[in-house]
């Protein structure tokens, strides 16, 4: 593996590991319900104890996402949210004192249309240290990985229980952390997980020195606690996005916005407890 300079994402995992903690990683869709509120939500997430945040770029055809995140994408796209909006939001949160690392979650086509060079220079300028592209498997990621490395952006791979023989190849190109997909299917809350999951995570951990996070379907405090025991990071997406969806009426009125943000903060605190 080539030598990669460490970035804020790597440093955060090192610090958490030293403290014996698991990274709590919320996912939100940028621009849901609007960019200014997204900035407020990110501030609230850090106050609630988030260690890293995944910034979802809304997309017209989110293949890997279930209905909750699809709806968030649709709400955001009404406002013509682009990748550039996501960069603006990231920069804005820094002026509001947010310190945690950002991981951009985007489908490949918006990146391709921006142009890879411009995309990565903007990533660097916006201070985003990680990148997840759910529809860019390792076989197609050569050029993106080289540019990501050059920009000191960690291209975080997804690994699924069905990856089997491909796991070794995926891990050999992994940066930042390994994102283990908890189960087959799209994103969305799940009540139960399949039995082989723990063994799967264990085998991934044995094959790589990078931190291992789990995501897809994790939606309550009990599940977060359970996975925190065996993973270095836990991603919660749809459950938080659903909470945001429920809070949209509050968030969009000046007088009730604080109440809406408070509800999101409390919900996330509860998840982490």
């Amino acid at each position: 593996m080539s030598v990669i300079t460490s970035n804020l994402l790597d440093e955060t995992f090192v610090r958490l590991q030293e403290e014996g903690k698991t990274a709590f990683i919320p996912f939100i869709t940028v621009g849901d319900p609007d960019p200014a509120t997204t900035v407020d939500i990110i501030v609230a997430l850090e106050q609630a104890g988030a260690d890293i945040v995944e910034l979802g770029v809304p997309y017209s055809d989110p293949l890997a996402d279930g209905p909750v995140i699809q709806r968030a994408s649709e709400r955001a796209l009404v406002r013509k949210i682009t990748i550039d909006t996501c960069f603006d939001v990231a920069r804005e949160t820094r002026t509001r004192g947010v310190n945690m690392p950002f991981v951009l979650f985007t489908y490949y086509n918006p990146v391709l249309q921006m142009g890879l060079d411009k995309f990565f220079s903007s990533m660097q300028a916006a201070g985003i240290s990680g990148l997840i592209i759910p529809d860019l498997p390792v076989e197609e990621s050569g050029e993106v990985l080289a540019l990501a490395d050059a920009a000191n952006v960690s291209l975080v791979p997804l690994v699924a229980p069905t990856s089997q023989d491909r796991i070794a190849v995926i891990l050999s190109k992994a940066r930042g952390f390994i994102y283990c997909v908890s189960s087959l299917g799209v994103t969305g809350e799940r009540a139960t997980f399949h039995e082989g999951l723990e063994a799967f995570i264990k085998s991934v951990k044995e094959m790589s020195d990078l931190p291992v996070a789990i995501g897809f379907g994790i939606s309550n405090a009990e599940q977060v606690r359970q996975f925190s025991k065996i993973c270095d990071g836990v991603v919660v997406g749809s459950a938080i996005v659903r909470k945001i969806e429920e809070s949209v009426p509050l968030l969009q009125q000046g007088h009730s916005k604080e109440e809406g943000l408070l509800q999101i903060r409390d919900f996330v605190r509860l998840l982490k407890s």
Partner: protein
Amino acid sequence: MTQVPDEHGRFGPFGGRYVPETLMNALIELEKSYRHYEDDAEFQAEISYLLKQYSGRETPLYYAERLTEHLGGAKIYLKREDLNHTGAHKINNAIGQGILAKRMGKKKVIAETGAGQHGVATATVAALLGLECKVFMGEEDTKRQQLNVFRMKLLGAEVVPVLSGTRTLKDACNEALRYWVSNVHDTFYILGSATGPHPYPMMVRNFQRVIGDETRRQILEAEGRLPDMLVAAVGGGSNAIGMFYPFVEDTDVQMVGVEAAGRGVDTEFHAATMTKGTKGVFQGSLSYLLQDAFGQVLPAHSISAGLDYPGIGPEHSYLKDIERAKYYPITDKEALDALHLLSRTEGIIPALESAHAVAQVVKLAPNMTRDDLVVICLSGRGDKDVESIMAYTEGGGIL
């Protein structure tokens, strides 16, 4: 010309496999199985048997004398895919993939459908082979194609109306892929067009090439030479690639793909991917795509539900870029005029999709001579569209 696709599923720069990690293994397994059976004599014999005895192949290559005379130019033949069982070329591919599913030990199949033709073909083959079948269909299309929805139900399939996005074909594809991600262990996805991630564009082409193979044999028998021009409608592009592929090396044979211009390529309401699209990654492969500057996929429009798709199969993008095939847009109105013309001159009501191909020939044939041989792929019959045509007419349209 080099063999496409290469081992990465690339047709030049196009194609590939841009899908969530959860699907990669299923696609690799599918490719392996397909490669294994591709040259298996027994597998091929089973397909040939069903194409002949069940679907009624070979389909005629019919000399459309009255249409030829009416247009007063090129000599026009119709490849009668509309005479297949279920009324369109889609059955060729559904039989191939259905048998492959069975060989792979899958008990359940899923499919996406726009016009309903591929859904009906899949439901039919599922009934024939004893497989459980679910068809994803945009809610908008379930309204436009109520008869096909009912046909699928009669055949024992479950029709799942898709409420996401634009509620048309592209969203039905998304939903089928999402369902497949969750159920890869026991489910086979019978994809209906020459689109999607590798190996689908290659596999669908190979199951559809029977159209071109037969045409070649039949035109040689009828005319003693190859045609000068092949014309076929393109949505995703499966009937066109099936017709074109066996002629790709014959550079004297012009290949013309016809896409839907809807209300016009300068309006927002069209599906003219080749005329107005740019390169992008969509539903698993790199190809031309209707999208905005930020890479968001634009909604497509066509009176024909089967052409109402913002993408196109990667091999067509390749044929366009190497200038082996040309692609032209035809509006809703031009297609309806052509449907009208073919119905009146030949007693054949074509599907709205196929009417686009006829419309392009209406434009081209008068400028050609009787020595020029043109073959139109008449991909499907028009019964399913009668209601849409009536609605259009009552809405102040032509006829």
